[in-house]
């Protein structure tokens, strides 16, 4: 089962972990991206995310398909939060269950790399004093 979600609501790691859990699987690997309180010397107040939603959902589905071509995984959840995300809270949760652990560990790593390079979502960092700044992922081909 592939679960994909773009949401303005706070992400629950437990809920997403339970969602991918499967009685036939011995392993769940997860990656949680959280908001850092600093960038270089600037103090980050929060992040603001926006997405090209229908295209982002398609791109997330493509990542699921690619993962399944590469590894034997059972359930996949790719959740990305949109709107304001305060410091320490999760902007992304990736969870994958697999019968054995190697598959889900590798699949999660692949998914986060693929998400950063291919899914049309953008993040603005809002600082305490400096001007807010749109970020760009080094994984994105047209970033530089």
């Amino acid at each position: 089962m592939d679960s994909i979600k773009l949401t303005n609501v706070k992400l629950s790691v437990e809920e997403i972990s339970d969602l991918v859990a499967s009685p036939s699987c011995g392993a769940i690997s997860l990656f949680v991206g959280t908001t850092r309180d600093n960038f270089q010397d600037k103090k980050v107040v929060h992040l603001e995310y926006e997405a090209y939603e229908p295209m982002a959902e398609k791109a997330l589905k493509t990542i699921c398909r690619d993962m399944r071509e590469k590894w034997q995984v059972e359930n996949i959840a790719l959740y990305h939060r949109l709107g304001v995300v305060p410091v320490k809270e999760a902007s992304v949760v990736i969870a994958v269950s697999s019968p054995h652990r190697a598959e889900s560990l590798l699949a999660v790593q692949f998914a986060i790399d693929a998400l950063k390079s291919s899914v049309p979502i953008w993040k603005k960092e809002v600082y305490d004093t400096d001007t807010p700044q749109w970020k760009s992922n080094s994984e994105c081909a047209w970033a530089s």
Partner: protein
Amino acid sequence: MTNNLKVPVKVLFFAKARELSGRKESELEIECSLTYECLLDTLVKEFSLELVENHLILAVNQEYKSAGHNIVLKAGDEIAVIPPLSGA
């Protein structure tokens, strides 16, 4: 000259491109067949995207397009102006 036939398309702006253009979306009449470069150039001029023009990619109907290709458009197509991604 069929090349000059124009069609109405929808243009979507995100992130920095949204801020520079001052809008989330717009309508535009544009040639139904043109190069990627020509399409990009038209959008940059029309919507004041000069500041980021070297760091944009275009998507047509939710598919990334790339330089060096011809783009064929029909009425109602959705073009998105996509700055460098920064999800996750």
